């Protein structure tokens, strides 16, 4: 998967207004659309002091909302920050929109916004193992394959995992969930 890092610091250390957020949104949208299928855009917030809720909503939450609604298919968004506190307002805005976003903070990761526990549980399994089929997820969580498949589909719709199609050993095709973050090599 191709990965591009985009620093928001070019818009200032303290962001900001909806107007500025809209400008950032348009640039980020173009950067996402220019990625090949499966590409990840990592929004780097390093060195920033303030990310206001209004800016975050206009630049990032609305962009993620467009991804969820299918405006650009098979591209993924993540954020990277030095400090979790900076992400509070963004997380609140994502929750209001019913969205979730993976954030890389220090050596760890966290999910911003709103993610129901049953999906959070599935997401953690995908991240922990890197790649999972619904059958494997079903075994790990002790749930039906159909249930596991639904969870992976929902995570994919929220752009929290990447789904790839591969040949099944016994013939036919199967879908495999691929984590957007790696536990030992963060994006």
């Amino acid at each position, binding site marked *: 998967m191709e990965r591009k890092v985009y620093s928001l610091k070019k818009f*200032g*250390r*303290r*962001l*900001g*207004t*909806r*107007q*500025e957020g809209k400008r950032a949104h348009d640039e980020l949208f173009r950067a996402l659309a220019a990625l090949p299928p499966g590409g990840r855009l990592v929004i780097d917030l390093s060195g920033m*002091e*303030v990310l*206001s*809720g*209004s*800016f975050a*909503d*206009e630049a990032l*939450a*609305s962009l993620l*909302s467009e991804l969820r609604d299918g405006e650009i298919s098979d591209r993924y968004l993540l954020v990277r920050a030095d*400090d979790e*506190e*900076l992400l509070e*307002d963004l997380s*609140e*805005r994502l929750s*209001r*929109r*019913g969205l979730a976003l993976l954030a890389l903070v220090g050596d760890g990761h966290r999910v911003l916004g709103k993610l129901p526990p049953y999906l959070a549980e599935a997401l953690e399994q995908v991240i922990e193992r890197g790649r999972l089929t619904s059958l494997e997820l079903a075994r790990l969580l002790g749930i039906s394959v159909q249930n596991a498949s639904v969870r992976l589909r929902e995570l994919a719709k929220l752009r929290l995992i990447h789904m790839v199609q591969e040949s099944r050993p016994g013939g036919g095709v199967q879908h495999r969930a691929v984590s957007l973050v790696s536990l030992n090599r963060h994006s």
Partner: protein
Amino acid sequence: MRTLDVWRLNRELPNWDRGFPRPLVDLSRVRRVDPFAAAFLALYARQCAEAGGRMRLLVPESPEALADLVGSGLFRLAAEGIWTDRSLPEVPDEGDGFSVITRVDEEAEVQATVDRVCDALEERFPLGETSIRVLAGAMLELAQNIPQHANPLDEDIDPWGLLAVREYQDHIHLVVMDKGVGLSNSLGLNTRYRGISDGEALEAVLIRGASRFTDPGRGGALRRIREVVLRNEGRLFVRSGSAWFWQAEVEWEIEGVSPFPGVQVSIQLPRALFFG
């Protein structure tokens, strides 16, 4: 009257209003005018001028208090709306947006204004990450609310947005205000809140994060500010129309006070936060 602050101003406003648009504002005995009161006087003077009158201001006898008031930029900003009983001393304008009341009109200017104020603040004393985040975040959200919400239907009114920040021994005082349509009129554009009173609008915005927009990503900024101020042991005062909301050691909401257009916000953050 020794100090003109939020509380004293609320008590004096009905008396001043009896003489509107030529109210007599007697500050002769005043020794201290806080930034909320100074900015409010500028708005009030502007109101008087727009109504064809002028505020008759008896300026403080205390040279320090008068210099302070002149230094706030009140007389420069609202010159056409103020008559004074004495000539005013020359006080240098620091020009960095700090201590001085600054106009907020266009959204495009908000970022630069907040940066200028925060840079000036950082030069005066070291700011921890939390403090700058709290202060700059509140300033950005409140200041952009003026171009976005103070005149949502583009009516023939001038919201005349103002911003001021001032440091004291024990706290930092941030003030953002306008004389636009106010919270109830802005919120009332959303059919869900049509006919809402000033007090109900304050509660809807500050407690429930209501917005005039139906977009779920909009609104909630004032509620977040209230939560952050509360978490950092600060004090918040919001006035809109004929109601006000106070949050400090207690939460207090009053409806039926002397009406004044727009939204006026005062945030006091303990200075200890800035060394954290």
